[in-house]
């Protein structure tokens, strides 16, 4: 098979894939490279020497707005959205394993917010808060706005998880005298733990880079994406690129540590078993 001639279709598709990868990572890599621009360099190539000048510049608030504060808010908000998404999706996923009255309308109601344009969700929530005389804030209205995005996704993931979950595990637990709570705690949760970690990661990243839904709901204090957007309009130095590089690196660290956590759990189980 291996010495069979590759067809024109193969090269066409391979070229297409190459372009796709270039589009995916090209901008990120370009920004990463430009963020090491020398102190006198500009926003575009060529590089005028290289330095860490712009990274240092990043941590001077007067230069680039409230980078530290917005990062902190985004991390906190991400954690809040993550925790809520995991708990609510898990509970909803468990509920949907049995049919109940009104389950189908409720499901459509829950996922409808995925098809509503996100800026409209943002606008609506912003208006609603305004009408009710409440202040919009990242920890209130923006938190709710982001949940309209992450909860339906979490629910859909849990559907997929439980459709593959063999109910005889629970019957076996019940047969061995486990209470419903013990069954959840000692059988269901450990078995679906990797999927729950996936939901958590998903919830966090969706929140962390969410823009449109947060735009009109965040109130006075910006989240990181909003802050970056504001910077692009009034900053014209490579400090912007330094920021991009740093946040991208942070995302990779988060994802990397999650993968590491899964690997460690797997290895520990295997070692205990050996």
């Amino acid at each position, binding site marked *: 098979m291996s010495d069979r001639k590759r067809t024109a279709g193969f090269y066409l598709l391979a070229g297409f894939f190459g372009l796709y990868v270039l589009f995916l990572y090209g901008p990120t890599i370009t920004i990463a490279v430009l963020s090491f621009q020398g102190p006198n360099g500009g926003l575009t190539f060529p590089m005028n020497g290289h330095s860490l000048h712009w990274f240092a510049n990043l941590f001077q608030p007067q230069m680039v707005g409230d980078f530290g504060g917005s990062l902190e808010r985004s991390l906190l908000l991400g954690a809040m959205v993550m925790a809520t998404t995991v708990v609510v999706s898990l509970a909803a996923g468990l509920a949907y394993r049995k049919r109940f009255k009104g389950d189908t309308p409720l499901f459509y109601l829950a996922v409808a917010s995925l098809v509503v344009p996100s800026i409209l969700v943002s606008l609506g929530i912003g208006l609603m808060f305004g009408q009710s005389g409440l202040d919009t804030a990242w920890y209130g209205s923006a938190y709710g706005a982001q949940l309209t995005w992450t909860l339906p996704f979490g629910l859909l993931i849990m559907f997929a998880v439980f459709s593959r979950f063999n109910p*005889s595990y629970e*019957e*076996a637990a*019940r*047969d061995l005298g486990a209470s419903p709570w013990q069954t959840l705690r000692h*059988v269901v949760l450990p*078995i679906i733990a990797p999927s729950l970690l996936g939901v958590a990661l998903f919830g966090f990243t969706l929140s962390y880079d969410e823009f449109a839904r947060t735009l009109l709901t965040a109130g006075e204090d910006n989240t990181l994406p909003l802050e970056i957007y504001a910077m692009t309009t009034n900053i014209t130095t490579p400090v912007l690129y330094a920021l991009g590089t740093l946040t991208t690196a942070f995302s990779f660290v988060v994802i990397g540590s999650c993968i590491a956590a899964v690997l460690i759990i797997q290895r520990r189980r295997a070692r205990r*078993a050996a």
Partner: protein
Amino acid sequence: MSTRFDVELIAVTKRYGPTVAVDNIDLRIPEQSYCCLLGPSGCGKTTTLRMIAGHESVSDGDVLITDQNVTNLPPAKRGTAMMFQNYALFPHLNCVDNVAFGLKMRGVGKAPRQAQAHEFLGLTQMTAFADRLPSQLSGGQQQRVALARALITKPKVLLLDEPLSALDPFLRGRMREELKRLQSELGITFIHVTHSQEEAMALADLVVVMEGGRIQQADDPRHVFDRPKTAFVARFLGGHNLVPRDGGTELAVRTDRCRLFAIDETVEPSLSGAVSAIEYQGTRVQVTLDTDLGVRVVSHLPDEEFYVHPFHIGDRARLGWSHADAHPVIAN
């Protein structure tokens, strides 16, 4: 003669909406017996087992276990333990923790429950694999762990759902012997669901043949095979010819009690026809006859007998039997 029963089903019915899965069955399983629920898929055998286990609610009727009505008790309060068809071993726990699970749920401390788990792994010869995860075991090994896990709760009745169907034929034979050995050593009742009549014959003290949610016949294997009550039982067990008679009954005659004769011999009772197939099967030869009545009958002849007067495909022949070997069965 034992008069106590480990399991009694009284007019038990299971309905799913308009469909009746189990239709008003009565069954009494004597103590310390090996009982096989036998039938084709969809006959209600698994539903019956799951109702005994408490994993399926009973629509009507009562389930008694050692004289106690358990119809509305949860599975763990019935004195039963179930071994699931796919074994349902918890994939995240090693063998010891799987086996110790029932004790852990009952609040037994770590050291004593692990000691007991090792003891039960020993009972099923799995001590050497105590630290393995289920995914690191073969099908037969997983089954032994599942057995140990079910037995550690000291059940009075062990329920096995198609326990051998996932194993290869060689292993199936070995596990069959082992199940029988365990049952007699432990002195408890096993109820074993199977669609294999061979398995039921080999294992059971009591064979319960089911079809369409009803019990067709419940008896010891020799009785069931020698005196099938209905045409269904005779057909399902195999090894029987069914000869139509008047009055809604048929005659069942074991194929190994039927002999082949030349067409011009006077044999009574007999059926005439043409030989349509001959199969050599080692210890015996299977001859199929398309009779003039329109039914197809089979004779299993000892090989040496067949080769003294061999028949050939297309030969006219006569299949005869003795009156003593023919039993009327209800046609169904």
